């Protein structure tokens, strides 16, 4: 070991309790930062999962569907070819893709006595993400099994004054379909969101097509069901680009471009995480400053001797800085190990106790996936070292400028 390092190490060891407390503080700050970044990553991943489960990783729609006023303008007509293309490209790019063509038809739903206007949602089933909230507690009756069946939100069923087994008639005139259909109500769903519950009417894609637009869809969603972390998702954008080229008449977006406000939120989140982390380090830095300052003041005479022997100012400066950096490096090493152990322990996902069913009732994935990238670890360690250098700057300057004669006078 070089003498400079050995000297610094032994000097730290002289005040081992103080050094341990300080290194411990640095370690704690690094650990907290790593854990905090990982939780921030989990929050980002949670957002990502919610978005992609609800809307898909890649979404194909009719151009101009967003501000269309007529139902027909929202349609992708004769969609079979487009769906086949999407399926082919998705299979080539993603591990376990789920391709979901959907068609929502605005219709008047009627029971025996009452009616209500809703958008009937049609898509092929099963769809694990949308069906997550359907369990014994929330689903009464059963889920869809045929094209002449319908599942309603419990509030909507009450509004129509219909019960399971009753007939529900849908009127959607003006389209290319039959314009009218009768469904058997097979199930009702309790949703946590009342607004969603009063508007929920689910049937099959074939049913909504027959009702209003044979052969057409509004959206073709591609769900990469194995994608859990933003960091792992290097495929959505690429798939969107490929599909965009293959389907020039349609609009193809990935989840980012389809949700610009979320994109902004994600962009704002990282600086926020860093800012809070910087605050941690400022606090640890003050403790380091105190430690280094005390250890310089206690050794004024010793530094005087070093100067007298001919040690240059820079050498003395470096000695003090080395002690400080060593302290931080030891603390940061322990903190990083602890932080990464925490991330590793929960990398396969964790549930917040008690909140899992609450999350599920909103259709959200109750499992959080911690996520940290090497840059964030490097940031935490680098910042610990930078903090040490800054904390040492002033005391080290004091030590470097000591007048040997003055310092000698300190002797008892």
């Amino acid at each position, binding site marked *: 070991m070089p003498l400079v390092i050995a*000297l610094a190490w032994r000097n730290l060891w002289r005040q081992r309790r103080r050094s341990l407390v300080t290194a411990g503080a640095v370690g704690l700050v690094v650990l907290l930062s790593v854990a905090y970044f990982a939780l921030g990553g989990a929050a980002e991943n949670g957002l990502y999962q919610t978005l992609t489960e609800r809307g898909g990783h890649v979404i194909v729609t009719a151009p101009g569907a967003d501000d269309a006023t007529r139902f027909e303008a929202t349609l992708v007509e004769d969609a079979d070819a487009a769906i086949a293309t999407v399926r082919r490209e998705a299979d080539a790019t993603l591990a376990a893709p789920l391709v979901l063509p959907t068609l929502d038809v605005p219709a008047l739903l009627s029971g025996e006595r009452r009616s209500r206007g809703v958008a009937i949602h049609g898509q092929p089933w099963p769809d694990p993400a949308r069906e997550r909230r359907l369990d014994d507690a929330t689903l009464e009756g059963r889920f869809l099994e045929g094209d002449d069946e319908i599942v309603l939100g419990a509030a909507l069923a009450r509004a129509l004054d219909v019960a399971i087994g009753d007939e529900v008639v849908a009127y959607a005139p003006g389209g290319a379909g039959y314009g009218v259909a009768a469904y058997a109500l097979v199930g009702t769903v309790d949703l946590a969101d009342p607004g969603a519950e009063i508007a929920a009417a689910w049937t099959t894609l074939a049913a909504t097509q027959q009702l209003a637009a044979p052969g057409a869809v509004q959206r073709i969603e591609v769900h990469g069901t194995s994608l859990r972390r933003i960091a792992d998702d290097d495929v959505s954008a690429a798939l969107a680009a490929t599909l965009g080229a293959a389907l020039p008449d349609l609009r193809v977006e990935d989840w980012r471009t389809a949700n610009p406000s979320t994109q902004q939120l994600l962009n704002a989140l990282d600086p926020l995480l860093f800012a809070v982390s910087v605050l941690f380090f400022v606090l640890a830095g003050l403790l380091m400053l105190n430690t280094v300052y005390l250890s310089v003041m206690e050794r004024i005479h010793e530094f005087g*001797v070093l100067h007298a*022997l001919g040690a240059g100012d820079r050498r003395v400066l470096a000695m003090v800085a080395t002690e400080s950096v060593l302290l931080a490096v030891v603390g940061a090493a322990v903190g990083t190990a602890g932080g990464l152990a925490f991330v590793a322990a929960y990398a396969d996902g964790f549930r917040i106790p008690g909140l899992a069913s609450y999350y599920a009732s909103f259709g959200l994935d109750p499992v959080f996936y911690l996520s940290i990238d090497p840059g964030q670890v490097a940031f935490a360690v680098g910042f610990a070292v930078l903090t040490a250098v800054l904390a040492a700057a002033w005391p080290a300057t004091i030590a470097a400028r000591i007048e040997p004669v003055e310092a000698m006078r300190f002797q008892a």
Partner: protein
Amino acid sequence: MTAEPLYRVRDLRKSYRVGEVTTSALSGVDLDVAAGEFTAVAGPSGSGKSTLLHLMGVLDHGDAGEVWLRGERIDRLPRGAAARLRLARIGFVFQAYNLIPVLSALENAAFVLELRGEDRAAREAKARDALARLDMAAYADRRPNQLSGGQRQRVAIARAIAADPAIVLADEPTANLDSRAGADLIDLMRRLNEEEDVTFVFSTHDPRLLDRVDRIVRLEDGRVVDDGTDATDAPASQATP
């Protein structure tokens, strides 16, 4: 003209101001030290012994006068140059606490060489040799707090001579030792002086040590009252030129 002395001090003055009071520590000191001499600076407390050694060791600046080392004027050197000169030419031994507590005797003895950038093997060899010359080879791995006061001072001398300086300046090296250890230390320095030609200037106020030296410079109130040259080989009547 005689050969250039190792040290030439001329009309050196230094005073300290504390508040309104000005104390004159040195009021015009003249002194020559030749290479190979073994010189004691004696005098009562406050007579200026430490101040003189500090100025000779470029640890501090005087107010007036000149200090020459081997024909080079050193009393006005800026901080960095003074440090480099001390590192290259001057060995120091102080009254107390002059070893680095976290280093072993060997590492302390090697420290000046380390500051000079010598590689590990070379500096350890020289440091071991220096410790051996002070009968301290057996204590190479001890930390200062595991050594007696006399042993610590020997390590300090080993550190000074390991770097082979032009002179060793020692300010009251025996002050913290009992008289027996003090006398032993001076004897060791004397032996290094006689056998290896190391030049020493040390200060002391212990009169019992003075019969072991061949030149005594006596200071009183910041002036040299007897510069010791006539006590040895010069006629009693000779005046300072």
